[in-house]
């Protein structure tokens, strides 16, 4: 063993630092050394900014008015309570996220069930259906703005042709349809995520269960209710919470499609916080908004996980 190692060292003696590293890898601190770079980076770009951001929410910080500075305690949080836009944004967030997740889950379940039948030629469908998930928000947003455009949108044209609409409609400019239109775009972008996870879940259900159920005379609806949904429970629960977190946190698509308008019809919390920071440079209030959003989301996630019992190890199927 010893002579062998000496042989190895002479073979690589040109790379002295490498040899030292190799020897270091034999010590019992090796795994900590491996973790060190990523951990340092995460502490630097996540942990520190997060704590700092929470501190900012108790301060006055406006880049446009550098004179205003200093601790203000709970001022921003109190102001939020009587800010009508905050309450509208909160309500819109709930509606937007709930509707988008429900729609994406249904479409994803439909896609996964169809793909799971493994009929000839369905592999190519799987790839094509997955594609929207990887497209950038900026392109997705403008693409749908073009499709739904009040003057030259092809969807308006199609709907008029088949007689659903009398005339072209300005989907994003009408407060009654703006939120629904953005939900449609979000569903297009996000449902492949559900399809992907649910398909993996479906693959884990033994075929025998369905055969046994068919022998007992269970129809397709009964099979879905008695086998598929219960077996998929963990996957659905995990996919839903991941998606809810993603949707609450990312204002990108709404920023591109409507900017929160018309009026505040599509204003959501994350967008409101971002615009408060980006347009008004009111960092204190924007931080307070995002802290409230984060805490609400965490409470929701904790409650949700408790109720749906996604515990460790259970989801390994």
């Amino acid at each position: 063993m010893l002579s062998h190692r000496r042989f190895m060292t002479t073979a690589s003696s040109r790379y002295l630092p490498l040899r030292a590293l190799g020897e270091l890898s034999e010590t019992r601190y090796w795994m900590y050394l491996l973790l060190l770079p990523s951990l340092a980076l995460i502490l630097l770009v996540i942990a520190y900014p997060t704590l700092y951001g929470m501190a900012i929410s108790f301060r006055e910080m406006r880049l446009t008015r550098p004179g205003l500075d200093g601790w203000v305690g709970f001022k921003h949080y109190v102001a939020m309570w009587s800010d009508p836009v905050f309450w509208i944004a909160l309500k819109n967030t709930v509606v937007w996220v709930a509707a988008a997740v429900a729609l994406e889950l249904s479409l994803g379940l439909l896609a996964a069930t169809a793909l799971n039948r493994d009929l000839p030629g369905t592999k190519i469908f799987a790839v094509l259906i997955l594609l929207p998930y990887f497209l950038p928000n900026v392109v997705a947003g403008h693409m749908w703005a073009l499709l739904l455009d009040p003057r030259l949108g092809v969807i308006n044209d199609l709907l008029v042709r088949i007689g659903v609409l009398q005339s072209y409609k300005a989907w994003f400019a009408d407060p009654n349809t703006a939120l629904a239109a953005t939900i449609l775009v979000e569903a297009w972008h996000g449902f492949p995520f559900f399809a992907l996870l649910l398909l993996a879940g479906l693959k884990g259900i033994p075929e025998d269960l369905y055969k046994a159920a068919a022998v007992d005379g269970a129809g397709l609806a009964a099979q879905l209710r008695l086998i598929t949904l219960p077996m998929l429970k963990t996957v659905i629960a995990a996919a839903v919470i991941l998606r809810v977190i993603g949707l609450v946190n990312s204002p990108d698509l709404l920023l591109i499609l409507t900017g929160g308008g018309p009026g505040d019809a599509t204003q959501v919390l994350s967008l409101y916080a971002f615009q408060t920071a980006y347009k008004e440079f009111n960092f204190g209030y924007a931080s307070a908004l995002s802290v409230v959003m984060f805490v609400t989301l965490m409470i929701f996630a904790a409650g949700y996980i408790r109720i749906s019992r996604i515990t460790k190890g259970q989801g390994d199927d």
Partner: protein
Amino acid sequence: MIESKRQRRMIANIATYIVLASLTVFCIGPMIWMFLTSLKYEADIVTQTMQYLPSRVTFDNYVAIWTQSGFPRLIGNSLVVTFLTVTVCVVTGTLAAYAFSRFAFRGRDQLMLGYLVVRMFPAVMMIIPLYVVMRGVGLVDSRFGLALAYTSFLLPLFVWMLKGFFDSAPKELESAARIDGSTRLGAMVRIVMPLARNGLVASSVFIAIAAWNEFLFALMLTTGQGSRTWPVGLQLMVGEFQLPWGVLAAGGILSIIPVIVLFAIVQRTMVQGLTAGAIKG
């Protein structure tokens, strides 16, 4: 009885194909429409009667976006930022994923959970302090600064995904190499990493696509031509110059080509990694 069973099967198959075809139209239709729009003259886009297939084809829109708007510069910046992000994630994340996959040590589970939890932090909550901190050290409007900001949400993702791939690489070969006198480092570099090569590529591609597409951080953290990435540039062009639809569509098509190509190459492995990670997590 047998006849009706076969019939029922036939109907179910037809229904499956109808569902798949409709979903595919829903998914791909908008992209095809954007592509067709990018090939039309502006006069054929803004018409009284909708033109479904372009009556005449032009590449003027592509020429316009490439030559008139500083688009190559934006694409170049995006390439640099994406490359830097992937490099940082691969160098630091591979080590961490390996440690999580191969060693049992105190605090391992808590640390892994921590890597998962930081992914839930809202982007807006990170953006403000990151902007203030980076302005303090001169990293606002810098491509490296932006890449560093991207690692805040992509590094944890990369570690989780790659750990799954390392987990499924057999441990026996590694043990054999160790018995033959290879160091832990040697075994990791020469045995495990080649075994998990596909996973490493797929995880890298996944974060490369995410970095390439990212919009919100870039909007806040870049202010000038020097570091602005294409999503921000394209968005600002729409606002500032009333970009014609055809040109905008051409810009969209150009910028998603790398995404589609990369996705097509590694989609199988990437899907495997994504689902394994998400279902376990």
